[in-house]
């Protein structure tokens, strides 16, 4: 289970790095990029969660029995070993939606940033952020 823990820690590191960038960078564009770093780390986490039971893609093919096939159990010993190493398709299916949503939000934010760059081409936080004042 050690490689799993190691990869998990790497992902945690990426999330923290992204959050630190979001907090510390003064440039709006870099802030949005930092947000994307967190997003990518989450995608990696879901792929990792999906791969914890195995790496083989669970695709049902006409030639061989798929993950749901009951024929695997009575097949040869190597097949039975392989049958246990299917990747979990649920997290992968779920993260597809999140990738699309992340992409569209990224695009929307970049459009707004393009418009904001007319006010301050340097995109420095201080030129926009006035806190509670109007």
């Amino acid at each position, binding site marked *: 289970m050690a490689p799993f823990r190691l990869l998990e820690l790497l992902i945690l590191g990426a*999330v923290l790095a992204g*959050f630190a960038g*979001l*907090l510390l960078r003064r440039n*709006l564009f870099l*802030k*949005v990029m930092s*947000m994307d770093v*967190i*997003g990518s780390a*989450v995608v990696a*986490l*879901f792929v990792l*969660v999906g791969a*914890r039971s195995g790496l083989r893609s669970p695709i049902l093919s006409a030639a061989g029995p798929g993950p749901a096939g009951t024929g695997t159990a009575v097949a040869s010993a190597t097949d039975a070993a392989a049958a246990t190493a299917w990747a979990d398709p*649920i*997290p992968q299916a*779920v993260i597809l*939606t*999140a990738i699309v*949503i*992340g992409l*569209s*939000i990224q695009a*929307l*934010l970049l459009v*707004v*940033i393009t*418009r*904001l760059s007319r*006010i301050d081409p340097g995109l420095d*936080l201080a030129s*926009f*952020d006035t*806190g*509670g*004042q*109007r």
Partner: protein
Amino acid sequence: MPSFMPLLSAKGMVIAWLLLPFLAAFLAAVLPPLARWLALLCCLATAAVAVAIQLGSLPVNVDLLGAYGVALKTDAFAVPFLLLNALVCSAVVIDSWERPLPGPFLLLLMVLHGGLSSAFVVMDLVSLYVTLEVVGISAFLLILISRSDRSLWVALRYLLIGNTVMTLFLIGAALVYLERGSFRFEAVAGTTSIAALALLLVGLLMKSGLFLSGLWLPVTHAEAPAEVSALLSGVVVTAGIAPLLRLSCGVPALGPVITGIGLASAVLGLVFALADADAKRLLAWSTLSQMGLVALSPVAGGFYALSHGTAKAVLFLVARRFPGRALQGWRERPLPAGVWWPLCIGSLSIVGLPPLAGFAAKTDLSGALSLPLEVAVTLVSMGTVAVYARFWGAPLLHRTAPVVGLSSGGEAPEPAWSLGVILLVLALVVMGSATLPSTASPFSAVAKSAMVLLGGWGLHTLVEGLRLPERLRLPDLEGLSDLLGGIGVVGAGLLLILNR
């Protein structure tokens, strides 16, 4: 099987109802003249579904595609939220019926409506993530509708923070799946991972505008156009609080934490609302405070959110026609009758005057709480009276001629009364009087409400006396760095508290 067919058709109806706003939005893009009617149709459908659930003619659990599929729960808990969604959205559509609307306003409103309806009935973390992001994106585009430079920044801030916390929410969902093998809310109840619970809460607290995670709310709600503010403060915040209450029912460890955060949020919002000098920001701070009260009780929270959201939508819709946003010198500026009466009724409902809906909601809430909490809520209610007392006392403008509002510069004069506002005010009165007879001890509740009003008025005069040399200057916590730091602080705090 005789019972199979009706069940199937009921399931089909639920799916059709959830799909309708999105199809209608698409149709409205193709056929713009129909947009208003389509938006109204969506609201009517939601109201009809809410009534059908209340009457018990819909199945409580709707499972789509088996064990790993989407689970919906159309139960009594969702009814007040669905009604609120239908009421506020239809009022906004009717209110803007005569005015030309900027391009995609109605289309976005329909998408927002659909996202909200789904958020109130979903029962798994991933569907919740998707619906909250749909709500977030459409709210972002609605804020942008005025196209001012200021709204660009406010909208960017809203989506940046919203997406960051929802990404953290997804990490929580992944941790729950890792342990329990499911994304359902029931799986959250069985999880032992403190980190997962903390991350899920960080996401939901930000969406519901509670405590430090909700500090984004005043600027966003105050800078958006009036119709959008009404939507944001009325229903969009409940998209976070409804799943939060559902989770706090199912996960015993979360109950005390959410109660604590709710109370802290109520006090925080109250203090800032008392100190603020801007009418729309005062309303937004009060939303933060009232959402804290909603979070106190999963049982009474739904109706409280309904009564507060309806009243707050009234206040924001008439805020468009305020003679100015500064509260300084409010009593010298006369208001037209179409603003004066809704302003009074809306604010009196929030402070809990019988027989308006807010009174029933406050009585329900007190009944559902333990004694120390009940005392705390009574004190917060007094503070709320002091907040809204600043709106009272403006003279009524005795002129029947229509008054030209602030935003509608040289255009055709607006009608003195807005039908959308009337609809909401009527809803407040009807809901309040319909639930009045069911109050356990009406006399003591009314006496308590009168006491709260008097105490609040006293507090108001006290605060007004203190206000003179701007002594009530509070720290400005609304910069982007403060908001992001607030997320970090709330997350770390939750980890510590849940770890005990």
